[in-house]
């Protein structure tokens, strides 16, 4: 609990006190594609056009934020670890099941980002 509170506080410090936070310099192909879905705000780490309280109560926002969050929690426990547990710690320790998990994270992410997410963003 102390650790995760620290993460949130650290992020807050990074965006407020440690200034010089530039908008993320994104690949131009992605910028063009996201523009079609009405995503133009690069000022914060998450696109504010989608991740805000009013979009939460639309179908698109519900799928992205609530269903997406559920999949993170469910998938993390089912796989027995997350990015840091499997991909970073597990690979460092040369554990082959962690490599399997990491490959599946990437396959899942690529399928979602390239084939499913565009239809969700169009909603």
């Amino acid at each position, binding site marked *: 609990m*102390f650790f995760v509170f620290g993460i949130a506080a650290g992020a807050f410090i990074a965006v407020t006190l440690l200034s010089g936070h530039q908008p993320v310099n994104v690949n131009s192909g992605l910028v063009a594609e996201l523009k079609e879905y009405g995503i133009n705000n690069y000022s914060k780490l998450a696109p504010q056009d989608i991740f805000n309280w009013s979009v*939460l109560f639309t179908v698109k926002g519900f799928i992205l934020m609530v269903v997406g969050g559920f999949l993170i929690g469910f*998938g993390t*426990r089912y*796989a027995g670890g997350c990015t840091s547990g499997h991909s970073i710690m597990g690979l460092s320790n040369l554990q082959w099941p962690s490599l399997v998990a990491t490959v599946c994270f990437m396959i899942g992410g690529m399928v979602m980002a390239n084939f499913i997410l565009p239809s969700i963003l169009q909603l």
Partner: protein
Amino acid sequence: MHEIGEVKNSFVEKLNTDFEVRSLDSVCINTSELKHPWWYNVKYLAAGLLFGIILVKTEVISWFRIQEMFRLQSFHMYGVIGSAVVTGMISVWLIKKFQVKTIYGEPIQLYKIRFSKGQIYGGLLFGFGWAMTGACPGPLFALIGSGTTVIIVTLLSAVAGTWVYGHLREKLPH
């Protein structure tokens, strides 16, 4: 007497299988068994602070960066994760070589991760969630701290996901 012995054996068996299931949860293994007053936890706050700052400054919690990664449009994420793995490898090697203890002198044990089908099914589901929200568990907290407060809902939903998994665990293929 014989009966008591049997009961004891079945109890031990139960304990062992419990450990087997628990050993799938990487978090449950190296938990310190020492008790401390609450202010001993302040150092975790410090570690969290540092982690939070790094997550923001490296942009790895950026939804845009995650999209680039999964669309192979940028090397950024692969560079950060790759260097984290190299750093981790060096750390693991040093811990093993010098038998490094925790700050309370407890030995660090690195267990072998056992393969289960969960790493495939769970991994795919996790990947979906990662690409949708642009975050994995640690970054959820960092995103809230960085000012996207609606992620609180995503976090609660993730916690709900872990509960539902706990309920369905026996029925899922592993």
